């Protein structure tokens, strides 16, 4: 089913070049292979320095692999002539919303991508309005971005990508700088895009409760994939995750400890409700 894969990493390696202070070139990603099917919501987990941001930048050609090949919808990201097409297919949202907004008015910022693609003005207008409505920021279209909250700014940044009609969005810790409310806003937007618009989402994060909502979770360590599967299976490996310096969702953690203490609870619990029901069931048996 080759045609259903939108992003393909084929044995990819990447090393940052040696600098003056750091004479050894640092190998960040080594022999990395990953297929992302169209329409999937994939979460990439890993603690700092595991290469997950590098993977994100490899997807749309900001970085080019030193060995191996990354293809996006059949296009090789290393091909200079194709890089614009690659970026039309994969949009990227970064951690700090302040550093990706280019205009002084919300709607002008959303228009930036389509303008760069050379689209006719009325078409841009349509896309901008549509994108702002999709993220629920239409009423804010003539505001100045610096007066918005972090979550709102990040939604504007996402709208800027939607307006380019990309098939896939890569998000590099989009909620890391937001307060809980802003995080919720952004997560809702991401899920809506995936479910309603069928956009492939690759969410790089270190929040477990965000990863739980994905269709598939990939856990990275030292530039390699160590776990890969649906959230329920991945979070079973509590000890493995902890040894990598990662947490598991709180409900999973509680179930894990209770099980270790001798209570008969299943090992694939993800949220509070499941956890409460499992505890209740276990206590009733006793």
């Amino acid at each position, binding site marked *: 089913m080759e045609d259903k894969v939108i992003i393909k990493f084929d044995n990819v390696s990447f090393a940052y070049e040696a600098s003056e202070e750091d004479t050894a070139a640092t190998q960040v990603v080594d022999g990395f292979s990953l297929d992302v099917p169209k329409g999937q919501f994939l979460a990439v987990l890993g603690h700092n320095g595991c290469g997950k941001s590098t993977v994100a930048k490899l997807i749309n050609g900001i970085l080019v692999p030193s060995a191996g090949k990354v293809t996006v919808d059949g296009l090789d990201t290393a091909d200079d002539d194709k890089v614009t097409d690659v970026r*039309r297919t994969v*949009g990227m949202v970064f951690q700090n919303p*302040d550093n990706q907004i280019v205009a*002084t008015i919300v709607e002008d910022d959303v*228009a930036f991508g389509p*303008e760069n*693609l050379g689209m006719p003005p009325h078409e*841009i207008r349509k896309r901008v309005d549509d994108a702002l409505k999709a993220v629920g920021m239409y009423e804010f279209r003539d505001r100045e971005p610096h007066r918005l909250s972090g979550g709102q700014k990040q939604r504007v940044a996402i709208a800027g990508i939607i307006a380019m009609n990309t098939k896939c969005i890569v998000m590099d810790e989009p909620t890391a700088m937001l307060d809980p409310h802003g995080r919720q806003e952004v997560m809702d937007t991401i899920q809506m895009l995936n479910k309603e618009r069928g956009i492939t989402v690759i969410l790089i994060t270190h929040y477990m409760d965000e990863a739980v909502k994905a269709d598939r979770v990939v856990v990275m360590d030292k530039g390699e994939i160590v776990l890969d599967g649906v959230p329920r299976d991945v979070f079973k490996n509590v000890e493995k995750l902890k040894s990598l310096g990662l947490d598991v969702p709180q409900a999973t953690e509680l179930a894990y400890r209770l099980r270790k203490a001798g209570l008969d609870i299943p090992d694939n619990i993800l949220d509070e409700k499941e956890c409460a029901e499992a505890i209740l069931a276990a206590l009733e048996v006793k």
Partner: protein
Amino acid sequence: MIKDITIGQYFIGDSLLHRLDARMKIILTIAFIVSIFICKSFPALLLMVLFTFVVVLISKVPVKMVLKSVKPIAIIVAFTSILNIFYVRGGTPLVDWRFIHITSNGVFTAIFMAVRIVCLVIISSMLTYTTTPTMLTDAIEKLLSPLKLFKIPVSTLAMMMTLALRFIPTLIDEIDRITNAQKARGANLDDGNFIERVKALVPIIVPLFVSSIRRAYELADAMDCRCYTGGPGRTRMKQMKLHPRDFAALAVVVLLIAGIVLLNIYFKAVLVR
């Protein structure tokens, strides 16, 4: 508090002046500044003052705000007036006492200069009060676009201007944050003589530069991701269009200049230069 600053000094409104095309406003402002300098007789000066007054009325910008824009130049106006009073010779002598010689020409020149500078400042601040920074940069880009023939990257320059405007509030926030962080570590920024205070700024400026450079890299990546190439082929969502009102405004300013020229001819020129 610091979040409340507007970029530039745009005053939100929907007056006729706000709706005029930004390119036309820039050209008319330049035309007005030229007319200020060809104006040489009192009736012509009066016409200019009247015009300025009407423009302020049309813009619906509160007079208080307009006066605020004049305030910083009050000292310059006072200073040039005093110099003119004492140094310009000719006409009927008014005061002739020891080394102080004041002549009618001196007084006239002083009044002329003061009125000219005030009008100039009010009219040019009307431009920034009624035009958003985005519209201004777009208009400047359009007006300078003939320079592309000389291989001057006009749209890249306009992009730089937009980005600079965009990052002013962000950097102000950043300065605030760094200042507080340094104060929390015991930095003393408010006391001491001038040199000590300048030195105390170093621990604020260095982190500011570091973070700005980091921001610039991230911004460049983000712009790359959104297919910005800096080259040709970029379109704009908001197209600038000239409306009948823009030509009407042009006609008014042309009439003003004609009026000033006529008044200069029919009435005695007061200014010698």
